[in-house]
Every structure is written in C-alpha cells, then in structure tokens.
C-alpha cells in the first residue's frame, strides 16, 4: 500500500510540470537544429562549445517553464541578434535567401529546356525522297531510261 502511494506521489510530482503547459511542449532536439552556436557557426546540435552548452541549458530551462519554440527563439534573438537562428527571416534582404534558390532552379530549367529544344531541332532528319512506283527516285529512273534507250 505504502509503495503504491509512493508511486502515485512520484507520478504526480513528475506529471505536474507537463500538465501545467497549455500547449504541446517543444523539444530541445528540435530547437538545437534551429539555433546556431554563435562562436562556432554550426547549429547547436553539432557543437559542444561552452557558448553552445550555455544556450542549451537556457533552452532546457525555458522548455521546462512551458515556453513555446517561437518564444524561446525570440528571447535568443533579443540576446544574440537574428544570426542566432539557423534559417533567415522572411522579410527584407533575408528574403533573397529563400527566393534565389527557386529562381536559380527555374532559370536552370529554362536554359536546359531551351538547349534540349535546339538540339532536337538540329537532329531532325531531312525529308525523305519519295520513291516512285519502281522503288527508284526520279533522277535514277530518268538515267536508267536514257541508258536503256541506247539499246533500242
């Protein structure tokens, strides 16, 4: 009985912080891929530097305090600036980072399509000469007639 009560009490203690969140909890793993290590210029999950460890601890504390991913990212941007995020923002000059790859792929596709079109046009076979009833072209047939006429 005593053991059963202890298990219930432990479950309540550990479940309490999770239950306190009004929204799904974000995870440290997810945010580690979204946030840069400021001193090593890799994402947090690829760094074990002291600065990365400090940010990791900060994120873990904020997740425990039920902060959303957006809220945590905003707090980090306030401290470190926009470059702390692994992905550029969707406004101003940063938009180029989103649009340039798309423009590049489209331009590449256009160039490729144009090249294929031109190549296929160059390789088009010439109009075949219509064969006559005898299976010979007109010129050959005419020359053949001339030759045969000599024997008449």
């Amino acid at each position, binding site marked *: 009985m005593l053991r059963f009560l202890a298990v219930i009490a432990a479950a309540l203690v550990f479940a309490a912080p999770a239950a306190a969140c009004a929204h799904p909890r974000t995870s440290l793993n997810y945010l580690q891929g979204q946030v840069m290590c400021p001193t090593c210029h890799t994402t947090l999950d690829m760094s074990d530097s002291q*600065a990365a460890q400090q940010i990791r601890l900060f994120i873990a504390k904020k997740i425990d305090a039920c902060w959303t991913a957006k809220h945590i990212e905003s707090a980090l941007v306030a401290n470190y600036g926009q470059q702390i995020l692994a992905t550029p923002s969707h406004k101003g000059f940063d938009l180029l980072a989103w649009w340039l790859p798309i423009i590049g792929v489209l331009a590449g596709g256009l160039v490729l399509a144009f090249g294929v079109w031109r190549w296929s046009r160059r390789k088009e076979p010439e109009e075949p000469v219509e064969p006559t009833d005898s299976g010979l072209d007109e010129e050959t047939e005419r020359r053949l007639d001339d030759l045969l006429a000599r024997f008449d």
Partner: protein
Amino acid sequence: MTRRLKLTGQVVAFALVAGLLALLLWSVVHQKHAPGVGSMAPEFTLHKLDGPGTVSLASYRGKPVVLNFWASWCEPCKYEAAVLQRDWASYRGRGVVFLGVDYHDLNSDARRFVSAHALTFPMLEDGSGNVTDRYGISQVPETYVLNRRGRVVAHLRGPITDPGFADQFQNAIAKAAA
C-alpha cells in the same frame, strides 16, 4: 537570330562570372582583421549591460582605455575578473578607463557574472558579436590597451593573468598613459 542569342548568352555568362569574382575579391578585402599596434581602434557604440543607455568609445578620447572582451561561459574569464577589478581600482585614480565588452552571451548570465565577481567598471553588451568581430576577437578573454588618441598600444590574446602577459599589460598601460 541564333548568333544574337548566342552572343547574349555569352555576355550574361561573362557578367555572372565577373560578378562572382568581384564578390570574392570584396570578401577577401573586407575580411575582419584585428587592428594592429599603432592603428586606430574601431569606433563603436554599445548598450550598457546593467541598465539603459549606450556608451561610445569616442566619449573616452583623451584617456587611456583598457578594453576587455569576455563572456560568462568563458572559464579563464573567471580567473581574470578579480585581477581586472584590482587593476581598475589601482588605475582609475590615474585616469585610466576600463571597459568590459561581453560578447555572444545571455544578458542574465552576464549580469550574474558581474555581480558574482563584484566588477565595478563599465560593462557593455555585444550579444551579436558585431563589434567584437571588428576587433578580430577569436577567443575570450582578449584585451586591448588604447592610448589617449584611440590608437592600439597592445593586444593581449588571452587572460592578463598569464605569466607572459602580466608585465606586458602593466607596461602597455604605462605607455598608453604617458
């Protein structure tokens, strides 16, 4: 028509290659180097760590300045802090200014660091590291000593507590104050 198209393609390709080369050249020329001894220290204006307001380096022109770059996550900075505070207390009467620049750090942790080490000289925050980059800081702590005209007298890459740096630091302050 085909010839014109070919020519246009060549011009576009050439312009693209020239543009990329220009970009490469620009990035090489504008690489951030640490200001050398005798050169002017880069100007900056940074927010104070412990409250509202900003501080600019230019406002200290006419005084020797010790510019120390640190972060709360940096282990050697912890050992260096006490020595910096002691030297600040010793030199402030002689008009030497000490400025701490906290970089790539959480403000809350940085304030705790300042409080824990009882540091009383002005502390500035450079979370983005923009100013720190202009000083070519690659590891913390690093310290610059500037003379009254804002020129670099010494750049110490490492804690001033290092045996090799202790004398160099004192000599640089003496030279900057002369």
